[in-house]
């Protein structure tokens, strides 16, 4: 009895994952149990390690297993270009496209007075510091076309004005939260067609 409860609980947990529903969760769990040695045990181990080690990069907000992420560690990515995104998912989408060679800065959201998110709740002070310490010459604002996204873009632009070149991704391209859904070609086109603010 106890075992079935755990399995049911596992299915219920899995069903809460984005992209999975109760039916696909059930199928996945059954599949894993049948491939216990090949899938389930290694997965459980990995999950334990990730649960222990996953953290936000102290510099950029990317998620990795070290205090400083691989991108921030990599000297070849110190190109003077910094791409500001709302969410880690956006960063990963850009990386998947593989066209951007600079570094990132993940804000962790957008300014929203109604949701009580101010500059201090986002990584905006840190962004200012990085522009100095990493000798940034161009900041690319890859923020959502939403009102909050644009308010945030205005805010950052205002703070950095005169210190760096400010650009944004080509208009008409859904960016920010939707970056994740774009194919590589579209992302690279938007990046190439970026324009000064």
């Amino acid at each position, binding site marked *: 009895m106890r075992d079935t409860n755990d399995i049911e609980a596992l299915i219920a947990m899995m069903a809460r994952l984005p992209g999975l529903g109760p039916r696909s969760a059930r199928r996945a769990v059954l599949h894993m149990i049948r491939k216990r040695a090949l899938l389930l045990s290694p997965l459980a181990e990995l999950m334990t390690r990730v649960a222990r080690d996953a953290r936000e990069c102290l510099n950029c907000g990317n998620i990795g297993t070290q205090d400083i992420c691989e991108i921030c560690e990599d000297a070849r990515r110190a190109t003077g270009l910094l791409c500001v995104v709302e969410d880690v998912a956006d960063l990963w989408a850009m990386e998947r496209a593989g066209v951007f060679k600079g570094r990132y800065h993940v804000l962790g959201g957008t300014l929203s*007075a*109604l949701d009580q998110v*101010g500059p201090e709740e986002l990584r905006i002070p840190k962004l200012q510091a990085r522009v100095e310490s990493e000798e940034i010459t161009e900041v690319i604002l890859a923020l959502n076309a939403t*009102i*909050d996204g644009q*308010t945030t873009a*205005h*805010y950052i632009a205002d703070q950095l004005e005169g210190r760096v070149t400010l650009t944004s991704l080509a208009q008409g391209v859904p960016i920010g939260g939707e970056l994740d859904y774009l194919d590589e070609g579209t992302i690279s086109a938007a990046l190439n067609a970026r324009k000064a603010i």
Partner: protein
Amino acid sequence: MPLRISRLSLSHFRSHFNVVIEMDARPVVLYGPNGAGKTNLIEAVSLFSPGRGMRRASAQDMTRRPEALGWKIDGLVQTPDGLQDISFVSEQGQPRQVKINDKPAPQTRLGELVRVLWLLPSMDRLWIEGAEGRRRFLDRMTLSFFPGHAEASLTYEKAMRERNRLLKDQVRDPIWYKAIEAQMAKSGAQIHANRQQALERILLAQDMASTHFPAAELDLVQTEGEMPDGETELRAALEESRFRDLAAGRTLVGPHRADLYGVFAAKGVPASDSSTGEQKALLISLVLANARALVDDFGSPPIVLLDEVAAHLDASRRAALYDEICALGAQAWMTGTGLELFTELGSRAQYFEVTDAAEGSIVTPINATG
């Protein structure tokens, strides 16, 4: 091809359980007793333009009780751009989802395809009540010329809510204000310009037409202070107003404080001081002028919803209204309690009788009596 709905089906929408009707291009008359479901039906038609429809109700309110399952509207709409299948679904009180030719579409897209204007009994007091009602009336007219008006209004309102929150919380970060005000200025200036141009077009159409309805002089005013002309000016005005706004806890300058001032032109009397009948006639006159202007602008007259408009007009005014609607070629949807209110229309219109039944409103097509 003039704009019209050729087929309309309602499912679980207010008092309508399941209704399918087919129409030609002629005006549509819906008659039947009080509470039969006439206004509900034209409310469904009002949803073919962006927004919450003519009653400004929530999707939840529109769902048929007691089932409260959600509702569906499906319309075949003949537009200047061709035939479109437009449908709305609201599930369990959720806001309606729009589909155009089976593809999900944003509500704002409706504004490009379809134009709908309306007059309701509740607007009889429009000239004497608060500015909000007149502003809404003006924005409906404006939207009919500028589909982008909906988007600009949404942006402006959202940004203003953000700014008002900062004001309430006594936040003082000037860069934050500036970032929000930049967006308010851009959308706000757009709103103001749209309204001005819409009024110009309506007034022009009014001047050009010979009509039995009285002309109005119209002015776009502010309930208080001045409306800055242009984006840069509005931006500066918002910045300047910050201190005052902090004390008030809300934004005191901008297009959200606009008002429509109307004068009964022939007598030089403000609309608010005109007789009840005159006030109504002014509104009809504006809707007709708006419709006429759209023939040039949009390539078709709009769909016009006139809820119980006949009841308030004497026989000659009524005949004049019907003549003008027929001359326009607009698919006007008109409601009334009795058929006798529409005798002057004769076979120029198509008729549906609406009756109330336990299992839902019944809508029956009636052959014109001529």
